[in-house]
């Protein structure tokens, strides 16, 4: 039974995948659906949702189309989430593999660095990083990755520790492969699946961290994100709650979708392991 079929057997995974595919499609189609800058002022301010079908979700305090903001916000949220997760996993898997494979002093040193990063809450780290360097998309991605790479690093190290004792690693040594080549070409690919299962959790966390940073006004002010929409809406929470609720729901659905997808992924992976 192949991997896709195993994945399809977990209902939560399927629901998550459907939600995610829908979101990705919306995000990709954003420039086609709303070719104008989503921050452009298009109508009367504070229009209620469903009052005007040209602006189905209403407008915010400056008269911007909430639906256009929401759709473009999906782009930003998914992009930041996925980019941060990729960066975190790339850093984490590399560090973990090197630490696990090299052992000894290198292992000790790298793992103490991991410990140091783990003692600081990821969000505070991101907050400090962004407020010192300044808010732009790549910086926000890096800031979030900085707080999220330790999980993959520990997991990758644990996997590598067990894999490096296997026979095929010894054989690779015998035929004279360079240790780094062994680490990254022979060991890392085999250590990766459990680390990948962690990816969904990191993506979900990254989307939330990005939203929190934008909410505090530390996101990139020139693009729309759901966090900044909620922050904007907060000032008029009592008179126009929909301005905070709409992006809030989008955030919840996305994070839920990512989690469910991750759940399905982890289940499918563990089934494969049981079989092997």
């Amino acid at each position, binding site marked *: 039974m192949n991997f896709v079929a195993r994945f399809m057997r977990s209902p939560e995974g399927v629901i998550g995948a459907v939600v995610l595919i829908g979101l990705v499609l919306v995000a990709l189609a954003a420039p086609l659906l709303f070719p104008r*800058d989503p*921050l*452009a*002022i298009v109508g009367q*301010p504070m229009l209620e949702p469903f009052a005007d079908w040209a602006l189905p979700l209403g407008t915010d*305090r*400056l*008269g911007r189309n909430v639906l256009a903001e929401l759709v473009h916000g999906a782009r930003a949220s998914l992009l930041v989430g996925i980019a941060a997760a990729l960066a975190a996993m790339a850093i984490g898997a590399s560090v973990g593999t090197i630490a696990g494979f090299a052992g000894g002093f290198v292992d000790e040193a790298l793992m103490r660095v991991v410990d140091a990063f783990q003692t600081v809450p990821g969000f505070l780290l991101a907050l400090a990083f962004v*407020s010192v360097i*300044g*808010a732009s998309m790549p910086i926000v991605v890096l800031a979030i990755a900085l707080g999220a790479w330790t999980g993959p690093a520990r997991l990758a190290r644990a996997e590598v520790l067990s894999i490096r004792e296997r026979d095929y690693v010894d054989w690779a040594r015998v035929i004279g492969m360079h240790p780094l080549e062994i680490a990254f070409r022979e060991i890392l690919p085999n250590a990766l699946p459990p680390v990948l299962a962690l990816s969904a959790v990191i993506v979900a966390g990254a989307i939330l961290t990005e939203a929190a940073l934008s909410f505090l*006004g*530390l996101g990139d*002010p*020139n693009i729309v994100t759901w966090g900044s929409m909620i922050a904007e809406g*907060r*000032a*008029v*929470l*009592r*008179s*126009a709650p929909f301005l905070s609720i709409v992006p809030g729901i989008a955030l919840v659905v996305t994070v839920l979708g990512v989690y469910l997808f991750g759940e399905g992924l982890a289940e499918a992976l563990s089934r494969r392991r049981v079989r092997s």
Partner: protein
Amino acid sequence: MSKFLISRRTLLGASAALLASTALPRSAFAQEAKKGGRLIVAADSEPRNLNPAIVASNGVFFIASKVIEPLAEASFDGENGLAPRLATKWEGSEDGLSATFTLREGVTWHDGKPFTSDDVAFSALNVWKPLQNLGRLVFANLESVDTPDPLTAIFRFSKPTPFQLIRNALPATTSVLPKHLYDGTDIAENPANAQLVGTGPFKFAEYKPGEYYLLKRNEAYWGEGEPNLDEILYRVLPDRAAAASALEAEEIHLAAFSAVPLADLKRIGAEDGIEVISKGYEGLTYQLVVEINHRTEQLANLKVRQAIAHAIDKKFVVDTIFLGYATASTGIVPQNAPEFYDAETEQYDFDVAKANALLDEAGYTRGADGNRFTLRLLPAPYFNETRQFGDYLRQALAEVGIDAQIANNDSAAHQKAVYTDHAFDLAVAPPVFRGDPAISTTILVRTATAEGVPFSNQGGYSNPALDTLIDDALVAVDEEERTALYNEVQELVAKDLPLINVAEWGFITVARTSVHNVSNNPRWAVSNWADTWIDG
């Protein structure tokens, strides 16, 4: 029964004349101030240095003005817009080289020592002139203060100093400190900067960081029967949404300085027992200004600046961002300063086509992506409205093909970027007009004398003709001549656009209706509240 009714009616009719004659005093009696009680107000910041003679800012005055008094306070109906406080009379000499103040009799400090002209002389020479942010300018040429007797202080200036300027600056710059506590000490580090001692209607009682400031009634206050309140408690509520709900829950009586967000005013104003008051800030007009960095090649071109002025829809800004609680600006002097306001300045109507034409004329044609050039836009983070205007300005400029990239900073980073590093092209600033252009307004357009001074012209703009006008006005003793000079300044600024004035606004006070005598002077929130009272 009916007989009784008729007889009562007859009686009422018969005494109608009598009733009419007493009606007025009777209603006045109903409004007579009640004594006692504790007024609880929201405070949104906790200034570290509370000394109003050193830090002449609204955040400090809000608390300190009840404890330490100026020589005179702003007033709606007083002569020249002033009401006496520690001085009862003031007069400038014809040559502008001296100003004489007659001080109030029988005033004592909170520690029992008498208040004399020595205190005024000490404050003027050792605090206002060398240490105070605004006093440095107003009292720049103050040479000495003569004290012929304990109730007379004569200020002597080395250069003619217009008395009009001194007078306009009295409420904000002349908080008098007790000489006996400050003399011979390091004034900036004196413990009395936190534990204030003054002559005001309230004594400073207690400060709990993060929680409250407490002021208590000064039994020996010079104002007869004043103050009415026993205590004023400032509850520290940095979160703006919290102030609105605290008012509704009757946890606080009053929130000044627009502590309640503008968007909430309509809703909260409709509630019973709560009143939204836009009066009482006439002497503290904030101006929404687009600061321009003239070092940027495109912005050095007058046509580009004119195009930006034409691209801004002031009506939208007033109606949507300020929800009507503001006025569109016509120039660098606000309309509620009739003494100086010039209505004849050049105006830039909202006209996108004209803005586009001006930019084409200036030689900046649209590229393939529709953009002419890119600018950095730094909105000041101090108010919701300045940030929102930044968002709006970005869109307004996009309409005319200017791509403005917003950078959000905190207060410290914003001030460094704009006023020290000059790392901006356009910035949004909220300067304050303090009753006289010389106090804090002309500094926005005059050639900079020093780098890094916050809230001054750091955009590299320099116009010798404008500098001459400003410098002449600073020593013009004759009021008409001085006003004429400032009219010329306004016209030149409107023509040459060193900056763009967009709107001007005062703050909003939201109070429970049980609080009386609210907003009864043009600087009410930062005045002494001696006559404020509260229903039991």
